[in-house]
């Protein structure tokens, strides 16, 4: 019997996947399977409304695209997906948006030629195109964990003072290379510049997302779900995950695990 089943919606997977961002959903699925949680993945793209599919979602994923690709989904995103995402935000559902996806969740994006592309304002803040690209390994302190990844973005994002970020930059550039903030969080929606892929690089954060999703859907946390599924903590093998983090040589000194 399926005790727990989560539905993940992958937004524009064939368009918004600039560099390995699909690793997030692949790893999320793997991690759920470790805990005995069933997972259903629905790919959603341009054109149709997909209202039903979006309503069934517990978590949304969206990556970044090249400029041309982002322009392509822009209209569809506004017309077809904006409302359902705002509703989902209010229902405490979860979203992980990377890079270009993250920028679309802010107030607006100002391109190099001054053109403004509105975002859906889940996060209060805006992005300005800039040069050079901010590229390299990044470490971010988020509560008591250190998130790591690889950033590669031309856009500089400036958050309003009341807007939560996901952490403080220990090494790298983060949102804009200046104010030491990285990413943004509103409710259970997260935006970040970190590729890596992000979730396999940060299995603790992946567990946190699973935990949030379970609480939201079933009112149990991950620990309780593990008990119900009879999965022991000791059976979870994080050896590769931990060592993969340690292999990032220039971030080593920021990592506790």
């Amino acid at each position, binding site marked *: 019997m399926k005790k727990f089943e989560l539905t993940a919606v992958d937004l524009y*997977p*064939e*368009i918004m*996947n*600039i*560099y*390995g*961002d*699909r*690793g997030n959903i*692949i*790893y999320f699925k*793997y991690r759920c399977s470790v805990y005995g949680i069933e997972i259903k993945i629905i*790919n959603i*793209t*341009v*054109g149709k409304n997909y209202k039903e599919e979006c309503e069934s979602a517990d978590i949304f994923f969206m990556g970044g695209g*090249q*400029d*041309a*690709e982002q*322009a*392509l989904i822009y209209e569809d995103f506004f017309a077809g997906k904006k409302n359902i995402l705002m509703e989902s935000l209010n229902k405490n559902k979860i979203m992980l948006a990377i890079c270009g996806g993250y920028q679309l969740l802010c107030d607006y994006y100002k391109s190099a030629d001054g053109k403004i592309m509105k975002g859906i304002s889940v996060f209060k803040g805006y992005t300005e195109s800039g040069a050079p*690209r901010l*590229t*390299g*390994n990044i470490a971010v302190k988020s509560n008591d964990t250190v998130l790591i990844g*690889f950033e*590669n973005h031309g856009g500089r994002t400036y958050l309003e003072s009341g807007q939560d970020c996901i952490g403080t930059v220990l090494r790298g550039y983060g949102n804009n290379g200046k104010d030491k903030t990285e990413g943004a969080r509103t409710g259970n929606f997260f935006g970040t510049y970190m*590729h*890596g*892929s992000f979730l*396999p690089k940060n299995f603790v954060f992946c567990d946190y997302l699973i935990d949030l999703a379970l609480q939201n859907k079933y009112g149990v946390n991950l620990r309780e779900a593990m008990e119900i599924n009879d999965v022991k903590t000791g059976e979870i*093998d994080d*050896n*590769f*995950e931990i*060592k*993969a983090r*340690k*292999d*990032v*040589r220039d971030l080593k000194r920021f990592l506790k695990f």
Partner: protein
Amino acid sequence: MLLNKKQKAEIFLYIFLKFILNKILKREGDVLPAHILRKIDRNVFENFAKHIISLGIPVILVTGTNGKTTTSNIIAETVKLSGKKVCFNSNGANMANGILGAVIGSYKLPKLSDTGIKGIAKLDFKFSADIIVMECDEKVFPAVCSILNPKIITATNFYRDQLDRYGEVNSTVFEIKKAVKKISEAYKNNTEEKISLVLPSYEPLAAFLGYDINADKKYFGFDESFFNANYSNGINSAETELSDAVTCPNCKNMMFSSKDHTANRLLYNFKCEKCGFAGHEPDIKATQNISGSLTLELKKEKPSFFYFKPALTGDYNTANYLAAYSVLKYYLNIGDDIIKTSFENFKTKFGRSYKKKAGGFEINIDLVKNPAGFSGVLNKLTESGSKVNILFAFSDRAADGRDVSWIWDVDFEKYKDYIENAVISGLRPYDMALRLKTAGINPKKITVEYNLKKAVGTIMDKAETAGLNEKKIYILPTYTELLRLKKYINGIK
């Protein structure tokens, strides 16, 4: 045009520096001497290019994400076999310095017996090659193209590569297109002559180089029947969910919707509904791939055929053969018998479908550097349907790309059941280990060994113990690991 004194001195200096580097310091290559020359004389490349152009030496440039080394080598080796002297960067040094080095290196002094000591003393260097074939990195292509003025250009494909080095693939392609367009315009009012482009029919970004341009174009591609001879592993690596060009490179409109493009990427028949940019019917296509024999069909009123037994397997190598054949047949007028001999006996560069028998094993080495190439290699080595023992040497040095995210775009899930053992070395082995584990490979079959030399021994031991039919190992290194491997593999007997 004659060489001036400065150029003679530069050639002399180049030879001198190369001698010190290669013979005294025992280091390979000609990049450093070329680098020094360019430091001393900013226009050195342009000036030598002018000399070559004045001699009327034809230049062929090969660029693209995957396959440019192999394609350019196949072309160069075949031209050599036809009796011509070729100047080419066979060592894979495909940046501006490497290409300049290869050019200057082709200037030779006349034989003492021909001119006597006087000729030598006058430093009467002559360009010794009949034709120039260069593999060129995508990023430096625009600069090299405007300097060398190639007569023939072939682009293999443009897939996502090291994003941190190259930026978005679209912008790279736009720069290349601009450069090609510019040199094509020199022939605008010339009815006799044009530049020639050899492009894939199935890959929109490379094919886009041929759009709206004054050039003679040949497109190469595949016929459906090529894929009918079922792969024993039942996997067609050309089928992929990942797309590298979902937007029309011409008008930025969407070229296909969602899932339709999961079809075969080598048969991809693209068409933009908005501006009309579309794939071309191939002028030459691979039709049959049966029991080690490959058929190429040339489109004509009455189609003609070319049969050969390829030395290189894997569908991506078929694409390399197609590109090379198009250049050799259509533009260099080399006969089929010479091409056949060359194609069937072609020996790859180290790390490109490379094979060596050593230590009682057949060692196979294939460079992996981006998702499309990696998936192609995995398919090739599991094609026969038997299980394999693989050593991955995976690093994130600058030349490999600092971002390792790209392995999440490789379709390991498709091949998980074919991997008997995986040993992983390099600087980022655990990222690869994690990727394989997530793809469904039992962690017990995954061993990390940071030391490359030991790792080769470990995979041999594992392969021995696994007791598969053939004693074979596969090594898949990223670029810098390939260089480290070369020293070691050359040493074992």
